């Protein structure tokens, strides 16, 4: 009887074989999209260089798929190879825009259920954002902000709108004032917003007695660093530069001066 560990070890051959097949499928075949120009003799004795070239061929294959799906783009990617290595590589598009959905081969995608119009610019927040709601509305935002709101409640709102197909080009989030953000909830939030081109996470500015503030901010910074569509707005630092009387005595909520400055920072972050 074969032990489980042995079956798993044997499974590597299956996976390696499948990976090889997939990589071969992605390599250009006819040269209609990708051209490889040899400027010297291809010497394939160096295994590392050959494998590197193969890996780059895999890269090129990704562009074949992307280019074929978007006919309006350039029809050719030029790759110049010398001595078995790539010396010039003109790429078409980076991964955020070069990751078109792969349509299933057998059945069309179901159309998302749309229960209302898409919201071009949406702001989801708690009581801090609520104070700045009029200023944000003047910028064109639809504001969904309530007092005592936890991150999970804002997540529910985002998930609902995402499932309804109503998320637009811009979403600003300011949550975390009322409690710690769970890492899993942040992942779910970024998942829900992954199709939104511009996401701004407003960092928490809380007194030191709110011990979860730093943890919340660390999560948001990490999310901004790892999601190309997401920017962190360092409200916790920028609030100190706010001109006028900006915060109430709790050092959290916004006076009128702070509301205007807060909205201006968001507008600046989005290039509005």
């Amino acid at each position: 009887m074969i032990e489980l560990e042995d079956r798993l070890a044997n499974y590597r051959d299956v996976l390696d074989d499948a990976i090889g097949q997939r990589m071969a499928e992605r390599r250009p075949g006819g040269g209609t999209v990708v051209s490889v120009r040899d400027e010297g003799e291809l010497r394939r004795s160096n295994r590392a260089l050959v494998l590197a070239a193969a890996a780059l061929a895999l890269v090129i294959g990704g562009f074949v798929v992307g280019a074929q799906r978007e006919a309006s783009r350039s029809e050719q990617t030029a790759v110049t190879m010398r001595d078995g290595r790539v010396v010039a590589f003109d790429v078409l598009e980076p991964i955020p825009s070069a990751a078109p959905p792969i349509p299933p081969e057998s059945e069309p995608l179901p159309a998302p259920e749309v229960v209302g119009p898409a919201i071009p610019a949406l702001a989801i927040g708690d009581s801090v954002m609520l104070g700045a709601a009029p200023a944000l509305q003047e910028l064109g935002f639809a504001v969904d902000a309530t007092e005592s709101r936890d991150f999970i409640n804002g997540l529910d709102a985002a998930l609902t709108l995402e499932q309804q197909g109503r998320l637009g080009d811009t979403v600003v989030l300011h949550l975390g004032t009322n409690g710690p953000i769970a890492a899993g909830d942040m992942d779910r939030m970024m998942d829900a917003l992954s199709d939104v081109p511009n996401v701004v996470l407003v960092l928490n500015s809380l007194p030191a007695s709110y011990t979860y503030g730093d943890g919340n901010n660390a999560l948001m910074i990490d999310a901004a660093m790892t999601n190309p569509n997401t920017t962190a707005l360092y409200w916790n630092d920028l609030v100190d530069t706010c001109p006028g009387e900006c915060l109430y005595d709790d050092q959290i909520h916004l006076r009128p001066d702070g509301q205007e400055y807060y909205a201006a920072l968001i507008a600046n972050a989005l290039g509005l």
Partner: protein
Amino acid sequence: MGSGFVMSVESSEAVMSTPSDRFAAFADGPGARLRQVLVAQHGVDLGVDLSADALAYAWEHWERIEPMDNPVGYLYRVARTAGRRQRRLARRDVFPPERDREHPPFDIGLHRALVALPERRRACVVLVHVFDWTYAETADALSVTVSVVRNELHRGLRQLRHELGGSS
């Protein structure tokens, strides 16, 4: 993350001078391991696609990505973001070979049991027991602690043995 990914890049830098040389070495070493992680999580087709796109992204942004302490970790997260988008839009969850593979013989029972595992658990099992990664390497790649890897492996193997019944 401090394992072989980063060391491979540093050693490449020591002997290669041009960006294309260094990127080629990166694609050959750390890039191949990135592919294994993505295959372990998303299956062969989507995993290979995501790794190819991630390497393309790395090349286009090579000046910014090369000096990073952990370029593979960054690319892994970029790829996962793209993966979430693709999987949701395409309404599919793939692992591992979606089509019949003629060679080598396909262990369909093990395949089905792996498919049934949660994504992170499957990734731990595949990376450690299929691709022969260390616990530390797996933890680094998945941005979790070694104890999480250990727990996931324990639960994953238990679940696989349960699914496979007396066959193992």
